[in-house]
């Protein structure tokens, strides 16, 4: 009897299971599911809201923008998307980029960085790496000293950047901050300068794969860089900056002085790096 029941039930259940299994597989096998036919210049519901909150009622130049964003369509990892901001005007006392806002529309916390800049940079170009959680636009808004806003955007196809398995190799070096001159000194010209902070920049969305507990957020939240006692820029940052936050930017070497980077993280950890410029 048990055999009969098993057979009838088994056949019935197997039939359901086959239907379920096949349809489930078909559902899984459906490609896509994420919006792919999106233009780099498109808006998004998130951007519409952010724009109204951050820049209410203000006109933004995009067609003849003085800022350009360089981001690959796809990157090796969603947790480390290379981003380059290129400014199309030099920094001068008369007119300069005074603030750059970097955003990732669909990240849990979209405002990734707000940089307050000075003419001392010479050229307001920046490079860094961002976490991107899902297919999204990355945007930059440059505010000039005359109040004009210029913007550019790129759509990127990566995901998982905010919850990627964290790399815990360098916890003993946390806060180690390094300043480097990758191309040496160019007297009285914009000279590239690299700043890197060894820091996990934990988002709060990463799971410890062993304990299955979420790792609390712990990220670099502010950086100030000065040269010869004068500010180059102040950065207010969020966890959308990749682990081991790295920035490349410019400064104009003059009569020499000390380059200084002061870093503060979200647990009030404070770190400093200096570099003497002859």
């Amino acid at each position, binding site marked *: 009897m048990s055999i009969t029941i098993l057979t009838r039930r088994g056949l019935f259940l197997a039939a359901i299971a086959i239907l379920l299994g*096949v349809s489930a*597989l078909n559902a899984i096998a459906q490609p896509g599911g994420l919006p792919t036919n999106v233009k780099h210049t498109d808006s998004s519901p998130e951007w519409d809201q952010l724009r109204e909150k951050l820049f209410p009622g203000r006109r933004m130049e995009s067609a003849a923008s003085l800022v350009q964003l360089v981001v690959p369509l796809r990157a090796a990892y969603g947790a480390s998307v290379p981003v380059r901001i290129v400014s199309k005007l030099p920094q001068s006392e008369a007119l300069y980029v005074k603030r750059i806002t970097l955003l990732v529309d669909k990240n849990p916390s979209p405002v990734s960085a707000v940089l307050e800049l000075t003419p001392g940079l010479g050229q307001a170009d920046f490079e860094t790496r961002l976490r991107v959680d899902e297919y999204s636009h990355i945007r930059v808004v440059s505010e000039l000293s005359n109040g004009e806003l210029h913007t550019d955007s790129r759509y990127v196809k990566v995901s998982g950047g905010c919850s990627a398995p964290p790399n815990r190799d360098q916890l003993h070096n946390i806060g180690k901050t390094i300043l480097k001159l990758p191309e040496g000194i160019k007297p009285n010209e914009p000279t590239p300068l690299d700043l890197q902070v060894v820091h996990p920049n934990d988002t709060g969305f990463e799971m410890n794969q062993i304990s299955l507990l979420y790792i609390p957020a712990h990220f670099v939240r502010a950086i100030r860089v000065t040269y010869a006692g004068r500010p180059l820029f102040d950065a207010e940052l969020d966890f959308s900056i990749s682990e081991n936050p790295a920035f490349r930017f410019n400064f104009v070497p003059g009569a020499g002085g000390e380059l200084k980077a002061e870093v503060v993280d979200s647990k009030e950890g404070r770190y400093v790096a200096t570099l003497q410029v002859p």
Partner: protein
Amino acid sequence: MSRHFKCPETRAQAPATRRFNNSGTWRRLAAGIGFAAFFAMPAQAGIPAPFAPVVIQPVGAPGRAEFDLTAVLERARRENKWLYVYLGASDCPYCRKYEAFLEKNAVELVPHFSRYIVVDLRSSLSVTTDALFIRIADTSRPYVEFQKSIGDERTRTVVYPSVWLLDGKPKPLMQLPAGTGTFQTVAEQLEILRLEQ
């Protein structure tokens, strides 16, 4: 913490499996679903035949899987073609998903692969970052060193499946993402083949 990465579905499925085990009915249902899924999957793991893949099996002692690209690179140089190198694992659901996508869209996609020699590296999830080696001529490099040597940013862990687009040197024609999830539509696969950045 392990630096090795496997298909993430394994852990996610575990609680559901335990719940099924609480009931005979559910156990049979689970078995049936598995049975159905097994037969619904492609019969053989790997790149589908219409793409004319050059299949490379690993060699090496246990704990070491070495894939030799020497011959396909020589062929690529001889025929002035590029390589579309696919690393799949026999026990990786995401690999099956990508292969099923290729198979389903083969008629549309195959003509666009004409610039490439498709290379199918047949691995398994047990081959982790430290155990995977790539040989070119006399030099065999572990995965991380190989990636660094060609300038590929994916140096952290082996991810299954992975794709490389290489020229005959070999150098990447374009930095590709870990995994294949961002090019599993025809339009996006074509973006990759056209090297659109």
